């Protein structure tokens, strides 16, 4: 029950965030679903690998969806990845910092940074996978 509520909240959050960024209406359903899948993947696996797998999943799903519905990937990516971004780690780091607990701040802070790095790396991989299979680019021939 608890995880069901969280899952629904995750979708609603991604949706509201998309509305805040004025994402076109027809793309909102996809971001809510992809956002949920990414967050679920992170919750199931956890740790650094969780961030990486989640980022990879979100990245690939966004690229595929963008090609299927012929919209740009950016529209999907931003609100889909936001539930996975380690906001909790950031808060805990600041909490430890304000309590002068440098050891804990350093540990959690490093974990958070590494988590962001893992997501970034995974999104990069996903983009590179698809960079080759896009419609031929009309580059100017000079």
């Amino acid at each position, binding site marked *: 029950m608890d995880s069901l509520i969280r899952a629904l909240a995750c979708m609603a959050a991604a949706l*509201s965030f998309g*509305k805040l960024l004025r994402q076109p209406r027809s793309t909102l359903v996809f971001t809510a679903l992809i956002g949920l899948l990414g967050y679920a993947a992170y919750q199931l696996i956890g740790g650094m690998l969780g961030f990486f797998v989640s980022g990879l999943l979100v990245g690939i799903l966004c690229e595929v969806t963008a090609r299927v519905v012929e919209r*740009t*990937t950016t529209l999907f990516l931003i609100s889909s990845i936001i539930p996975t971004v380690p906001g*909790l780690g*950031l808060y805990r780091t600041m909490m430890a910092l304000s309590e002068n607990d440098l050891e804990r701040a350093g540990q959690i802070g490093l974990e958070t940074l590494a988590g962001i790095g893992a997501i970034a790396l995974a999104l990069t991989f996903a983009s590179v996978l698809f960079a080759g299979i896009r419609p031929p680019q009309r580059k100017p021939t000079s």
Partner: protein
Amino acid sequence: MGSDEVVGLDSAALAARTILESSGETYRAEDTALRMCAAYGLEDAQVMAFPTGFTLSATTREGQLTRVFRVTERSMRLDRIDGVNTISRLAASGQLPAAQAHRQLLALRQDPPRPWQLSALYYALAAAFFTVMFGGGLLEFGLSFLTGFLVQALQTPLVRRGVPGQLRAFVLGFAAALASLALASLGSIWQLPVGQEALITGVIMPLLPGLAMTNAIRDTIRGDLVSGLARGAEALISAVLLSAGVAAALWLRGMIWTA
């Protein structure tokens, strides 16, 4: 209005400018400008875009023409990125004459501004649902909604007064954490335990520089190293300042609490 070619160049420049002002990727601004130049028969089109401006030049019958734009204020406008994309696709397929593309771009840039209450409502909803996602209950949901509404309401005058984005991150992080802490203390007076962690984290989630980070990655992959680094630095500085704002509020509360 000049010849068709000049209008074509102008609309290509306007398209690139709109993308950059809507926080679109730099490579997208360049690609779009080149595609539109090609569609309107401009030769030797060259474009060099950065997150903060671009130059576009092409050869017309009237000689070499250049357009330069400085982009000072950027905001997140996914609808405009989508709109420009549609226009440039139509232009590339030859279905949209230059003058018409120019008119459509101008119309796209002049859509009525959204009332701040609506943005605040969406921010509040996003914050409240993030709070629940982090384990908050009904009480935290309500408090997060209130705080989120307040944070976005504060952001609007800051943007209007031209407070730089990085400084805004600090102020908003501070305000979000301080308001959450105040509400949590109020709750404890009435014997209502408030999940402070879920509350604050939920409220700051929409402020995290996700857009800047994603675009930094996408620009870097396309080989646009200057833009990638610039945006990466932007994302990092925003995140650090946002965290500093939160830390400042937490620290302030600790001072008062112990006193």
